[in-house]
C-alpha cells in the first residue's frame, strides 16, 4: 500500500521492525469441534507490550483463539508459542498468562481482597507480600474501601475492576481480556477503556483483548485483527483498518461505509476511473489498490468524506453525483443524510453540526449534490 496513515500511537510499531521477536505466536493454528471449524489455519504474531484486539462477530473464533492461549482448549493443528516456548500440553495453571473472564468469574464465597489474593496464594507468596500486593491492586483499581465486600455486594463496574485486579495481581506478562467491558453501560465503558489503556501502558503488559465492539477496539488497540469464520481477514492499526480496509467485509464491519459496485474503465498506477451503475460520470480515484482494467470492483467511501450541498460544486477535480434527500438522521453532533441516486442506490453523507442551527438548509426531498475528492475513497476488489 501507499504511505502509512496518520501518526502511530506512542510511536510503537514493532510489527514493522523485521528484527523484532514476536512474544506470542500462533503458527497455522486450526481448532475443530466435531465438524465445526472454529479457527481455520490461522497465524499471527503479537509483540511484547502490544495492545492487540481480536475483533469479529460472535462465532468468528476469536474467543476460541484466546482460550487456546489460556490453555482451556488445545489446538487441533498448529502450534502456539509464548516467548519462544511451545505451549502444547502445558495445563492452564502452569501458563504465565492470566485471563479476565467475560462473566468476571469472581469467587462468590470470597471477599474482594481474597479474590485478588487467590492467585498469589497459589504461588505460595509470603503473607506480608500478598497483603502488600493486594493493597497495591486495590489502589490501582480504586477499590480500597471495598476490600471486605463480597462480589454480590458490588456494582457491575466494581466487579469488572475486581476481575481486572485479580488477573493483574500475579503480574502476568500477558493479560487476556474476554469482552471485558461488555456488561458495562456506555459512559462507564468509555471511561474504563482509557483506564485500561493507562494500566497497560504503566505496567508494560501485553494485552490480548477479544471484543465484538469495533469502537472499543478502535479506541484501545495498537493493532486490530478482524476475524470472520475462523480466519484472519486483516491485521492492522486502527487507522489502517478504517482508512485502508482490504475487503468489503472489513470496510463494512468497521464503521459505516458506502459501497458502489462498478467496472474499472482505466488504471494508471494508483489512478483509476470506475464506471459505476447509475452514475452519469465515472468515479475518479487515486487509490486503485490492486484493481485492473475490466475488473468488477467496489468503490468504498466513508460517509463523513462525502460532502453534501444544494449547489453543484464547481471544482472540476471533484467527483459529483446528484440525488434526492431520502432521509435525514439527526444525531446531535452529526447529521446523516441518505441521498437516493436516480437508479435507486442510496449514498450516505455525514455532516458535522458545527453551528447551532435548528433549521437546516437541506431538507427532505431536496435535490442535493454529493461530492468527494479523488483521494477520499478507495477501490476494493473483494
Amino acid at each position, binding site marked *: 500500500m501507499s504511505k502509512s496513515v496518520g501518526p502511530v500511537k506512542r510511536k510503537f510499531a514493532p510489527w514493522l521492525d523485521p528484527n523484532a521477536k514476536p512474544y506470542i505466536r500462533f503458527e497455522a493454528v486450526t481448532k475443530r469441534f466435531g465438524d465445526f471449524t472454529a479457527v481455520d489455519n490461522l497465524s499471527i504474531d503479537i509483540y511484547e507490550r502490544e495492545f492487540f484486539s481480536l475483533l469479529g462477530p460472535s462465532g468468528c473464533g476469536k474467543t476460541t483463539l484466546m482460550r487456546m492461549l*489460556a*490453555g*482451556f482448549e488445545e489446538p487441533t493443528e498448529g502450534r502456539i508459542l509464548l516467548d519462544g516456548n511451545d505451549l502444547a500440553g502445558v*495445563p*492452564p*495453571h*502452569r*501458563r504465565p*498468562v*492470566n*485471563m479476565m*473472564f467475560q*462473566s468476571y*468469574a*469472581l*469467587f*462468590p*464465597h470470597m471477599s474482594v481482597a481474597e479474590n485478588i489474593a*487467590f*492467585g498469589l496464594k*497459589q*504461588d505460595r507468596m509470603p503473607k506480608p507480600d500478598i497483603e502488600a500486593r493486594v493493597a497495591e491492586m486495590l489502589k490501582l483499581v480504586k477499590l480500597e474501601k471495598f476490600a471486605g465486600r463480597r462480589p454480590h455486594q458490588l456494582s457491575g463496574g466494581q466487579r469488572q475492576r475486581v476481575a481486572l485486579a*485479580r*488477573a493483574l495481581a*500475579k503480574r502476568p506478562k500477558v493479560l487476556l481480556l474476554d469482552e471485558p467491558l461488555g456488561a458495562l453501560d456506555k459512559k462507564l465503558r468509555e471511561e474504563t477503556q482509557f483506564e485500561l489503556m493507562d494500566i497497560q501502558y504503566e505496567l508494560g503488559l501485553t494485552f490480548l483483548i477479544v471484543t465484538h465492539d469495533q469502537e472499543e477496539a478502535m479506541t484501545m488497540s495498537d493493532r486490530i485483527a478482524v476475524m470472520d469464520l475462523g480466519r484472519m481477514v486483516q491485521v492492522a492499526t486502527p487507522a489502517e483498518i478504517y482508512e485502508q480496509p482490504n475487503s468489503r467485509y472489513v470496510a463494512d464491519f468497521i464503521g459505516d461505509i458506502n459501497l458502489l459496485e462498478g467496472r474499472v474503465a482505466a488504471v494508471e498506477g494508483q489512478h483509476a476511473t470506475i464506471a459505476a451503475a447509475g452514475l452519469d460520470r465515472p468515479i475518479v480515484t487515486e487509490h486503485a489498490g490492486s484493481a485492473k482494467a475490466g475488473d468488477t470492483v467496489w468503490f468504498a467511501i466513508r460517509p463523513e468524506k462525502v460532502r453534501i450541498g444544494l449547489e453543484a460544486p464547481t471544482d472540476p477535480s471533484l467527483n459529483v453525483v446528484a440525488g434526492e434527500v431520502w432521509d435525514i438522521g439527526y444525531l446531535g453532533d452529526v447529521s446523516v443524510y441518505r441521498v437516493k441516486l436516480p437508479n435507486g442506490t442510496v449514498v450516505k453523507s455525514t455532516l458535522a453540526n458545527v453551528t447551532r442551527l435548528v433549521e437546516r438548509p437541506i431538507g427532505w426531498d431536496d435535490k442535493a449534490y454529493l461530492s468527494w475528492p479523488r483521494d477520499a475513497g478507495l477501490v476494493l476488489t473483494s
Partner: protein
Amino acid sequence: MADQSAARGPTWTKWLVVAVPYLWLLVFFLAPFVIIVKISLSQTAIAMPPYAPVFDGLATFWDNVRELSLENYVWLTDDPLYWRSYLSSLRIASLSTLMLLLIGYPIAYAMARAPKSIRPTLLMLVILPFWTSFLIRVYAWIGILKPEGLLTVALQGLGVLGPDEQVRIMNTETAVFIGIVYSYLPFMILPLYSALEKLDGTLLEAASDLGCPPVEAFWVITWPLSLPGVIAGCFLCFIPIMGEFVIPDLLGGSETLMIGRTLWNEFFSNRDWPVSSAVAVVLLVILVVPIMVFQNYQKKI
C-alpha cells in the same frame, strides 16, 4: 401514601396469603405437638385412651393440672434402655449420614458434570426407586441379605464363599446400615446435585488460570460452594434416620437399638402412651439443636 396502599390491594387479602401456611402449621404441627406434650405429662391409666384425662371440663381443670408431673421424663433417665437407644440412634444416624455423603457426593458430582442431554435421564434413574413402595424395597433386601439369599448364592457362584458358607449380614447392624444408605441415597443426591449443577464452570477455569491445580480447585471452589447442598442433604437424611423404625425392625437384629423402635414398643406393646410421648418430645428436642445450628449457618451466608 393513600395511593400506594390502594395500589397494593386491600390489606386483608395480604393477611390471608400470609395466614395460610401459619394456619397449616398451627393445625397440623403445633396442635398435635401440644397434645403430645400434654400426654407426656400425665399418668398411665387402664382406659381408652390409656392415660389419665387432662381436660374434661372446667370444674376439674385445676385438679387435673395439679396431677401433671415430669415423672415420665425422670423415668427416661432411670432406665438405661432409653438413653442407650438415643445414643445408638445418634451413632447410627451420624455414621450413615457420613456414608451417604461419601457415596452421594461423587454420584451427584458426576451427574452435574455429565453432558446436559443425559442429565434428565440420570436424575430420573435416581428418582426411579420411589416408584416402588419403600416397604417392598426394604423387604427385597431381606431376600438379598438372608443367609441363603441372593448375596450368598452370588458369592458362592463366584467362589468367594465355599458351598457350606453363608453371609451373616441379616439381623445385624451392617444390614441396618445397608438398608439406610440404600433407602436415603436419593435424599442425599438430589440437594447435592442441585447445588453442584448451579456451579459456574468458569469459576474453575478462573481458578486454574490463576495457578490452581484441579484437585486443589475442588477443595477451594467446588466444595465450599456446594456446602449448602451438603448441609441440606445431611439434614434431609439425618433427621428421618434418627427416628427410623421400619429398617431396623426388618433388617436389624434384637441388638440394634434405635429410638424409633423403642418408641413403637412403648406405644404398641406396653401401651404406655405417656412414656412414649415423653420419648417423642425428647427426640424432637434432640433434633431441634442441629436445625438451629443450620439456621444460624444460613443467616451467616
